[in-house]
């Protein structure tokens, strides 16, 4: 057998590498040529929806939209937890997707995305006024820029097990935070089933904590984006949470993930949770007898009658600056999606809620049973919430009725101000869950914990003010 010398090896490897390089550049040239002669491409990046049926509808819908507009549409679904890091990498690379859909307000990306004031104004002209929770999650009043376009959101009601609440004399479920404390404590003591509000570093705890603060007439910031956390009402809310933990919860909630309250409800181990209707939909599929026992309550009212719940999911799409060439397509896609929002609501099994309730319902076959007299998305939305088309056979009617006017008691992150980047960082680094948990665990007094959290908030606000994304006041 012929021996290969060092010289031969290096020479042949060099020739091989050069050949590969030339070959690949020829292929690249061919590809580039092919691209210039091809029709345009619109690339979408979004999360894998909690309701798989939505993606099964959305992907072919996007393709069909592309066919109609002579565009190739690709839809890439990735895990929710990878969205921010993927988009950040695309920004640094200066290339990537043309339209990215977040499910929390991506306000810190404002310097790298296009101002979508035009498409937002156009949408309001065509479909009527946007719900405030959507506008506050996509518009920066300080820079007067729409960094995103919010086509929909998700309601975050209370989900309770009626049979348990019946046994302690409150069949209609809690209406106030005080009732939640009193009756959930009775359920735990008498029936051994705990309440299901988390106290850990996760999304649902973040939302629950904010709902409690807002309902106690406080919050992290006011409408002028000034930190207001350090006040007596926050202390009152933190003390309430300590009481709620002592009487209705167990240390289990310190370890919860976003899926834990759903799992606890479905497993019959929670009397009340704060979550979207997806927990109920999962129960319908997996444990129908539990689903039939799950009912809903609107935002719980605080000691002075105020009641707010957080939005559960907010769909905000952005167009990066590097995708300017395809911005016209992306904007048209968004407007057409709003025009078809009756389908989005239907295919998400009522999980998605429209930002533009007055968008007209298109004529013709819509892929769902005809709703007589429905002219606007609000009409079909109300009809479905009056009588849930996805209810199980034999299930009580009108269970979703309490959620019909949810836009009146749903708030954005940062309420009563906008969802600015400081609020995003406070949310992302779990300042509020930690504030509540320190006291629930007995590690700090309510006063000290609130002071610490307020100091953290002020530091975060100062950083983003220095970035110019929040006005110094």
């Amino acid at each position: 057998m012929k021996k290969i010398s060092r010289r031969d090896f290096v020479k042949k490897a060099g020739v091989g590498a050069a050949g590969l390089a030339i070959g690949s550049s020829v292929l690249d040239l061919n590809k580039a040529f092919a691209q210039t002669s091809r029709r345009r491409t619109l690339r979408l990046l979004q999360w894998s929806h909690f309701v798989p049926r939505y993606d099964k509808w959305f992907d072919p819908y996007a393709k069909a939209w592309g066919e109609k507009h002579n565009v190739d549409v690709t839809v890439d679904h990735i895990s929710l937890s990878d969205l921010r890091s993927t988009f950040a990498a695309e920004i640094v690379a200066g290339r990537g997707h043309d339209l990215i859909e977040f499910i929390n307000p991506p306000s810190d990306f404002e310097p790298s995305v296009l101002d979508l004031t035009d498409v937002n104004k156009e949408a309001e002209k065509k479909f009527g006024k946007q719900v405030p929770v959507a506008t506050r999650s996509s518009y920066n009043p300080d820079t007067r820029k729409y960094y995103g376009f919010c086509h929909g959101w998700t309601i975050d009601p209370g989900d309770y097990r009626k049979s348990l609440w019946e046994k302690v004399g409150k069949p209609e479920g809690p209406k106030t935070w005080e009732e939640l404390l009193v009756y959930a404590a009775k359920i735990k003591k008498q029936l051994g089933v705990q309440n299901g509000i988390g106290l850990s570093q996760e999304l649902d705890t973040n939302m629950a904590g904010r709902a409690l603060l807002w309902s106690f007439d406080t919050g992290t910031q006011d409408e002028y984006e000034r930190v207001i956390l350090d006040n007596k009402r926050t202390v009152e809310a933190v003390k309430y949470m300590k009481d709620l933990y002592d009487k209705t919860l167990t240390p289990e909630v310190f370890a919860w993930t976003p899926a834990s309250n759903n799992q606890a409800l479905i497993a019959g181990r929670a009397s009340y949770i704060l979550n979207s209707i997806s927990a109920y939909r999962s129960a319908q599929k997996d444990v129908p007898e539990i689903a039939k026992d799950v009912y809903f309550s609107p935002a719980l009212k605080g000691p002075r009658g105020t009641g707010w719940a957080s939005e559960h999911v907010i769909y905000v799409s952005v167009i990066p600056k590097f995708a300017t060439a395809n911005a016209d397509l992306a904007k048209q896609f968004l407007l057409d999606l709003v025009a078809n929002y009756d389908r989005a609501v239907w295919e998400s099994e009522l999980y998605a809620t429209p930002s533009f309730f007055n968008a007209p319902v298109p004529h013709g076959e819509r892929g769902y049973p005809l709703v007589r007299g429905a002219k606007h998305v609000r009409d079909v939305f109300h009809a479905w919430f009056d009588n849930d088309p996805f209810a199980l056979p034999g299930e009580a009617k009108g269970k979703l009725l309490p959620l019909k006017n949810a836009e009146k008691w749903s708030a954005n992150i940062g309420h009563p101000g906008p969802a600015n980047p400081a609020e995003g960082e406070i949310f992302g680094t779990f300042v509020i869950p930690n504030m509540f948990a320190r006291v629930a665990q007995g590690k700090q007094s309510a006063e000290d914990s609130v002071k610490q959290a307020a100091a953290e908030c002020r530091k975060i606000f100062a950083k983003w003010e220095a970035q110019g994304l929040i006005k110094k006041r």
Partner: protein
Amino acid sequence: MKPKKHFFDRETVLAPLLVLPAGLYIVLFVGFPFVMSFVYSISNVTVGNPNFKIVGLQNFTAILADPVFRTSLFNTVIFTVVSVLLVLVFAHILAELLLRDFRGKWLVRFLIMLPWTAPIALGAVGFLWFLDSVFSPIDWLLRDVGLLGKPGALLGPASNLYWLGRPVLAMASIILVHVWRLLPLGTVILISGMNSIPKEIVEAAQMDGAGYFRRLFDINLPLLFPVIGVTILFATFFTFTDMTVVWVLTRGGPPPNATQVLASLAFLTGIEGGDLAQGAAIAIFFFPVLAGLAIIVLRLVKKAIVT
């Protein structure tokens, strides 16, 4: 006539050429990100805005004043020191066992190596279920044998131990999973070290009447020191910079940051919080600590080899 030397036969050409791929790899995938991290750490860059200006040591002073950073640093030290100590002890025991002949040795070796071959995220997800607050099979077993879940039970009357919900148990859990993951590496390194100890020395000591512990402390451990040094170095690096186990099991919780380590805090601050500069400052904090440790351990190892 002296044959003409080909261009590629020259050592001055061939040697750098062969080293080039490794050098390129280090520059591109280690050097460049390291330089970028350093630049980011002295800047005001955010996730949403890659344009930045240099702000000096502002991020470092901010993180040093942050109680969450100090908690995370403390947790990282506890996580690393306890994990490395446990890996050393268990790896030594396993290595001793695996050097002996017994039936089914191949199966034991295979099972010990398994955690190293499986992706850590997969293993951690398995442990997440194992340590679940409600459905933990460990709790189920403890309840079944009467140690948990009834009045007067040794581990308390609650139905669960809440492994990931109680600060001390949560830290113990992440250490346990990390030790499970690193044990194969430590064992393999120590087995190779033990195999290199000259048998005549051990046999001579045995003949002179030296017992197991005498041989362990006077012969095995001193001769194994260079290998133990390498094991400490690897185990420390893998633990100090790891966030997978923490992120999958506790995400830094239970609140407030009971298992938050520097790696997870850097991710939380830099990516989830959007403050990439401060995230980079936290991450770059690893460098002087780990570089210092590497220098000390490698010097000690070198000294041990020479003497």
